[in-house]
């Protein structure tokens, strides 16, 4: 590898990028936009879900139960009609997410120590929030009116994210997703642009080698991706105040390795296609989709069918997701994370070698 040619090539790349303020702006702005959209947009927490209460008992006990629901913070009163029918209508029209029926004699039966039936109906249209709401509802009902119901008293604790604040879980996941989504796109466009404009011909007809070409393209774009990484980390950790339990330095170091990996995926894509449009589509399909759906970002991999688990393992995002959530949430270190880091490093080498092998200094 000839260092002078390599550096000349990288320098040319930097000059070109720096004179295209639009692309650089998009490259730096889009990750931030995505971070904000997702953190504010995807909240797995359920708060203030509308609740319709049909209280046919109107006893102190029924009022107490109602108050416990509304004071929990998970439900807010939407309406309190007298008949069950209007509550059904409200559910039907989607005006409320849940309805609580307290039949006549609720207070009396409770006082007499008999079983006192109460019905909570949850709108199951949105399965995940329905599950959460019904769990909240069940918890409130079991605790009512407060006495011990059985001799077993389970004490469940949630570790690593005790408030189950979904932000703490989403943000480190987004690090992995965003850095997979944008850096390869930019890189894939950069090479296919040379093909489209015809500037690649003078690269072909020159002593510049494959290795110099691949490395020369990789360096500046990995640099940009690293800046993207710093911006996204800053946004997640400072703006959204997600605490980092482990070593921040380790997170940045593995992050750098990860962006080199994703940038080289972009390079590989660009060696497969001729036009910028095709590069964009292939990059989106290869990076965005698996990053969102098959990385464990929202849907955990361990609940997927076996075949999809294997498919997920073919992309680097799940491994960095592991590292990112491990460091941020669990405070893990090298001792626990080294297998994932090794996979990312190996992946990077394989992709770079593939790209160099695919990049022929030939028209066809």
């Amino acid at each position, binding site marked *: 590898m*000839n260092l002078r040619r390599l*550096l*000349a090539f990288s320098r040319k790349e930097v000059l*070109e990028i720096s*004179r295209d303020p639009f692309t650089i702006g998009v490259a730096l702005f889009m990750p931030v936009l995505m971070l904000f959209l997702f953190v504010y947009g995807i909240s797995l927490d359920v708060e203030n879900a509308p609740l319709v209460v049909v209280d046919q008992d109107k006893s102190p006990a029924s009022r107490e139960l109602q108050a416990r629901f509304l004071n929990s913070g998970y439900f807010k009163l939407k309406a309190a009609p007298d008949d069950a029918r209007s509550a059904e209508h409200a559910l039907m029209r989607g005006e409320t997410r849940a309805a609580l029926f307290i039949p006549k004699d609720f207070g009396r039966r409770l006082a007499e120590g008999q079983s006192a039936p109460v019905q909570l109906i949850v709108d199951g249209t949105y399965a995940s929030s329905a599950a959460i709401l019904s769990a909240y509802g069940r918890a409130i009902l079991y605790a009512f009116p407060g006495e011990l119901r059985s001799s077993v008293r389970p004490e469940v604790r949630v570790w690593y994210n005790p408030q189950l604040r979904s932000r703490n879980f989403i943000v480190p996941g987004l690090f992995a997703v965003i850095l997979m989504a944008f850096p390869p796109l930019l890189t894939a466009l950069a090479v296919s642009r040379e093909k489209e404009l015809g500037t690649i*011909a*003078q690269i*072909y007809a020159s*002593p510049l080698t494959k290795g110099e070409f691949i490395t020369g393209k990789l360096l500046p774009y990995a640099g940009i991706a690293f800046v993207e990484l710093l911006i996204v980390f800053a946004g997640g950790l400072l703006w959204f105040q997600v605490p980092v339990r482990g070593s921040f330095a380790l997170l940045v170091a593995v992050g750098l390795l990860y962006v080199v990996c994703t940038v080289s995926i972009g390079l590989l894509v660009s060696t497969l296609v001729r036009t910028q449009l095709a590069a964009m589509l292939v990059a989106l399909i290869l990076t965005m989709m698996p990053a969102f759906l098959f990385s464990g970002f929202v849907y955990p991999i361990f609940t997927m069918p076996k075949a999809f688990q294997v498919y997920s393992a073919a992309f680097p995002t799940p491994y960095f997701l592991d590292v990112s959530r491990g460091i941020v949430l669990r405070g893990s270190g090298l001792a626990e994370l080294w297998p994932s880091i090794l996979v990312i490093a190996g992946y990077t080498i394989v992709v770079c070698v593939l790209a160099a092998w695919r990049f022929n200094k030939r028209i066809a």
Partner: protein
Amino acid sequence: MASSAVIEAQGLGRRFGARTVLEGLSFEVHAGEVFGIVGPDGAGKTTLLQMLAAILRPSAGTCQVLGVDVRHRPSLVQARVGFMSQGFSLYDRLTVAENLAFAAAIRDVPQPALAPRKAELLAMAGLERFQKRREGALSGGMRKKLALCANLIHEPPLLILDEPSLGVDPLSRRELWRILDRARAGGRTIVFATSYMDEADASDRVMLLSGGRPLALGPPGELRARAQGRVYQIKASKAAGLEDALQAQPKVISFQRRAGDELRVQMRDAAPPETVEGLTAEPAEPSMEDVFTVASAGPGPPPPESMRAALGTEAPAHRADRSVIDAAGVTRRFGDFTAVDAVTLSVRSGEILGLLGPNGAGKTTLIRILCGLLAPTHGRAQVAGFDVARESAEVRARIGYMSQRFSLYPDLTTRENLRFFARAYGVARDALDTRTRWAAQRTGLDADDQKTVAALSGAMRQRLALACAIVHRPEVLFLDEPTSGVDPLSRYRFWRLIASLAADGIGVVVTTHYLEEATFCDRLGLMMDGRMIAHGALSDLTQTLGLQRASVEDVFLGFIARERARAA
């Protein structure tokens, strides 16, 4: 003498899938030679040059370049040649100096050698003043010159150039060749592709390429000698019946009206054509263009009968001799950039106006304005009696437009394309059939051809595009570079079609960057940097400059010089 051969090709060929683009090429290029490759688009010129530069693998045969096999050691060839591809191959966001520095660095030019070489090349190209300018902001001619400098910076023994002067203004073209002459004097071998016959004429040896096979190979003088006795000229000022008489003779390959009153005729064998009363055919010195026409016609069959039928004229469809285009002070700006600058012109029915100029001169923009596709920023224009800005719908119904890239649907047949365009132009349902048949017959096509456009040759597509543009019998016909990339023989046939349409009373505006085609036009508009620097019949323009006999290029250069003098 194998040692002096810079290129040795044996049975070289290339296929792309099932399509054979190049076949059976065996030739040598000697050290210090200027070797021209001439042929129409699709002849395989680019493919050949890419194989010589070792950036495209041959699928048949062997090829040694600078003593290295292109198949086995491509990187050695790539590193040592200079290769200038078609179009612009430098980085538009980098400055002139940065582009050169980059080219030098990736081609291993030693640091101390860079500065003097750069200075020398830039001085030669007249680009010293623009070192800090971005490549994308240079004119087309300057960009080409810079690309040539970038390919000379490592002083390659062999330069491979793919249509270096395509679409470049005549002045830059001369400068480009001045640089190349210096390179040649320095002992470099030059292999280039061109569609300019004068460039071919100036080379040491020429290879005529057609349909992927060599037609002829040799020094220009020798090739011309082979066509000796088969080229004639007839002095006649628009003699009625002469063209029809020539048209009827199977031995006539082709004939062209040249500047003024001259007809040039190419024959299938060495015997003069029959003429009409009082006119004689004089033997003429064959030009490279004649050579190509003669070589590509070979002893093959004459053009199909349908083509002959197409060339007759019919009763004028439109009232004769009135102004169909009137434009005054038409200007179009895109931001700071003035694409068309205060152009005034008029065209009468039955007249052919040729707009000549290099790429970027504003020809296409002007045509778009006249077609009502683009509103002028200033000035006004009337086409077929309607204002192009305010009544563009009426204008568009009365014009035919054929664009640079023939806008046909490749998956439809001839008939389907014709019917689509007829309907799109609002031809009545019951007239569809007669209209499409008429348009096909007029352009020498078979209306019932079941082949899709994708399967037609370039020349056939060109005629179909013309048929689609005239299917609604427009009053004005706009042709934007209609002959670009078509071989000379087909080009002449196409011009005959245009002339016959004009004879029907259609006003025709044609753009071209083939200056020699100017002789087919009644009047010329010479365009440069958005301005119309001269306007009138070629003979008048020649006189204006005080010249006796001059080529179109000389005339163009004369007016450019005038413009420069006026601006200074």
